[in-house]
């Protein structure tokens, strides 16, 4: 398994191949790559052309205070690092896709535009991330009742022909995904870090091989956990989905922040689980425009969750977006 020269060029410019920073310059951020890629397009250049000869010849006329030509050259010179990383990752059954890939999730591109990740690493069925589904989010430490509810949402999604999109973490994520997978459904797990380890775990491996599951990550597959990656990951979960169910949220932290961001941006309809113990975040999210989901997960009709009418209309709460 190898990747095309175009993908090689994009990886060289935008990806890390290890946590170790060394003296290589930082890879281009999604936005930086967006600017650079747009310029290449105007010049009728393909990313692969950058590997054909000295890049400085091709880059005449490019000027950007952050994306300097020496930085581009140094990034492109990381060929052996790329090769070692690709051998290890593709050799372990992972795949790589860039924005140019036909299977690259269109929802992500539409909703995030230039901020959508230039490269996605993944494992399992590569068609699944572009197929939409029901996002299920919530805390890893959710009590048993919440985990049972999550599982039921997963089971229901599977029965009604929808995929589950979640974070692949313990608690709510795992319950929803395994609920779907064990009922014959499909799932997409978006992980913030450590994709490689997650793919080799006994609980997911079988489903990855069978093609019911995809695990994806925008960070390199052996990265340590960084808070910024985790927040990005939460956004990607919403942006891959058609609707979202927040099972349990505090009024701060990852679940809360990304749920609020989803309400601000109007990505997908957000539903919250009615809670007996008045989890403070669930009610607060309802106050910001989320809808209450049925008390019994078995009563959820997935089609209804996805209706555009359920999108929050709360411009007054977010005046800066009005």
């Amino acid at each position, binding site marked *: 398994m190898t990747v095309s020269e175009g993908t090689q060029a994009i990886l060289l410019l935008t990806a890390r191949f290890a946590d170790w920073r060394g003296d290589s310059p930082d890879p281009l951020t999604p936005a930086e790559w967006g600017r650079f890629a747009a310029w290449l397009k105007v010049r009728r250049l393909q990313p692969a052309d950058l590997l054909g000869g000295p890049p400085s010849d091709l880059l005449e006329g490019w000027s950007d205070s952050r994306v300097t030509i020496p930085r581009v050259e140094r990034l492109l010179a990381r060929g052996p690092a790329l090769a070692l990383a690709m051998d290890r990752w593709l050799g372990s059954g992972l795949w790589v896709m860039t924005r140019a890939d036909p299977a690259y999730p269109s929802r992500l591109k539409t909703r995030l535009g230039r901020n959508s990740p230039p490269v996605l690493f993944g494992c399992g069925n590569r068609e699944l991330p572009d197929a939409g589904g029901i996002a299920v989010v919530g805390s890893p430490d959710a009590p048993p009742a919440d985990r049972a509810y999550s599982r039921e949402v997963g089971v229901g999604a599977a029965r009604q022909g929808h995929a589950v999109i979640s974070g692949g973490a313990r608690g709510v994520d795992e319950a929803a995904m395994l609920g779907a997978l064990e009922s014959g459904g499909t799932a997409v797990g978006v992980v913030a870090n450590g994709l490689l380890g997650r793919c*080799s775990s006994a609980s997911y491996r079988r489903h990855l091989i069978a093609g019911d599951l995809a695990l994806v990550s925008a960070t390199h597959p052996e990265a340590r956990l960084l808070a910024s990656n985790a927040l990005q990951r939460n956004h990607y979960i919403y942006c891959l989905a058609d609707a979202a169910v927040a099972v349990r949220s505090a009024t701060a932290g990852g679940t809360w922040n990304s749920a609020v961001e989803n309400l601000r941006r109007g990505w997908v309809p957000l539903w919250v689980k009615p809670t007996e113990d008045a989890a403070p975040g669930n009610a607060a999210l309802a106050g910001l425009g989320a809808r209450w989901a049925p008390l019994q997960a078995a009563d959820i009709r997935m089609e209804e969750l996805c209706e555009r009418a359920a999108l929050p209309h709360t411009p007054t709460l977010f005046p800066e977006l009005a």
Partner: protein
Amino acid sequence: MDRTQAERLLHAAVGRSDATFRDGQWEAIDALANDRARLLVVERTGWGKSSVYFIATRILRDQGSGPTLIVSPLLALMRNQIDAAERLRIRAATINSSNRDAWDSVKQRILADRVDALLISPERLSNESFVETVLMPIAGRIGLLVVDEVHCISDWGHDFRPDYQRLINVLRQLPPNLPVLGTTATASNRVIADVSRQLGDIRVQRGPLVRDSLSLQTLSLPGQASRLAWLAQRVPELPGTGIVYTLTTSDARQVAGWLSQQGIDAKAYYSNVEGEGFEDSSTYRQHLEDQLLGNELKALVATTALGMGYDKPDVGFVIHYQVPGSIVGYYQQVGRAGRAVDRAFGVLLSGREDGQIVEHFRTTAFPPEADVEKILGALEDSDGLSVRELQAQVNLRQGQVQKVLKILSVESPAPVLKRKTKWQRTPVRYAMDTERIRRLTGQRELEWREIQDYVRTDGCLMAYLRRALDDPESPDCGRCANCLGRPVVDATVDRGLTASAARFLRRAERAFSPNKQVHQDAFPQYGFRGNLRPEVRSSDGRTLSAWKDAGWGAMVAKHRLAGRYGDELVAATAEMIRERWRPSPKPEWVTCVPSLRNPDLVPDFAKRLAGRIGLPFRAAVRKIADNEPQREQRNSFHQCRNLDGAFGISDRIRATPVLLVDDLVGSGWTLTIVAALLRRAGSGPVHPVALASIVR
């Protein structure tokens, strides 16, 4: 950079201002440094490949490129390469398993851009922590990649190696903006085609392989004793210093031991060879290589571990004690002789055992499918297991487990992946490629037949080798034994020497040390755990022979089958104990390890041995459980667990030193545990002795 400028660099490199490029050297440098191309160079050893990559390195460095990474099976640059590098102001560094202490400083120097060429061995690429901590951090700066002995990446080659499989997997992922040089001195058309297909879009440059000063000869001497005798007589007559190749490690030790005993300066060289006073095997191997380079030895007796790239200009002879598996492999080894000398000899001895050894290599090259399935099955149900944990789950030797993991981990995609110390099953469907294994095994059989023909041919030997390597020209050499119609090295064998060699072969006595650390949880009944306490440990023991070998070992095997160990073996064992071993404190009684399957065999032998050395025999050990045969236990966990509760000790034990007799010793666990039981029951020190050791 044009040819004239490059030639100035060549003058600097070789230290002579009249030097000119050999055929093809400038073309190769031009392709790498100016076109940043991928290039496969097929040229004989000594053609000057290192000049090519050092000059290309100098040019690229002057243009601001990163350092050159050289992947080579050599442990260190040869002296002449280091000199050439220094004269070109190329700062070279080596990272391999023997200089771990230096890794950090080398890494820092590379990151500070103070290294121009870095040499690593291919097996480093399969070492996850090396890749992660050393290679990845510097891999952002490599300017030129050199792969030495690139024919090893082709499984059509005679010498395909798993470490090179990993290398080819990495090469396949390389973007096209990095120049790559592959070099080899031995490659048939088919191998060249395969290598260029795998590397994709690579230019091939090929030169003639002839070696003008080399006189070849073949000589069939079926018995090992006659071959040893021939060596002892002829090696001193041969010019300069040289190499004797053997097929196995134990043959290398034996031949070197025999030659030393005959007053010839010879030492054994193989992959894990240890030398007293040397930190580890690599350091000792480098020392041996240096000794041969400096002509401080008459001969190095080596396995294929004395490998590729060993570039000594004045090797006077290369003798093969046994026939290697392929003609290409043979050419590669014999081609080490006679580069910069007028006269050199390449003699291929063939013996009775060659075919068996080669067949063993062939049939064990790939692990049995059942082993692979066991290991994948165990990994399937886990999130990751260490080799030790795997061994507790599957009854396979550590070596077998590691071999399976190695073969699987270099597949692409691979069904297993090592992360830190644990092996994980990856989400990759896997079925063993039995078709490929069949093809490779067939290929090896073909190669074996081909070299058999070389041994038998009456045509020119050099021409035969060149044809086998697809060298376009192969006229008769006029200097081999067949061209001359007479031996180039005297073929007669001295009778007296043959008799001494036969005596030498028979004496394969070996000391062995008991095991000290038992497997956790393996002895719930006996209650042994961790390190065995000194007061229950056995003393060091002795074996009379190596199982089935040319000395007593063959007789042990024969008598065991017949059901009685003859008096010759009793006499030989008694002689060994009394005259050479002399265990101390002196044993005062004899006992033995009993067996339910064969209740008389060992006690009968032990009783006669006791009589012969004048000590009383006591049946102090009883077999009380019918456990599985110990030889079917493949790793130490299973070997330990199988013994738990198997033996009982009689109530009245003499508190004096005892000789503990068994017939065969494999892992040594039976003797270790029986000795511990005896000592716990109150015996004095236990001296174990056995008829033969089974080395796996």
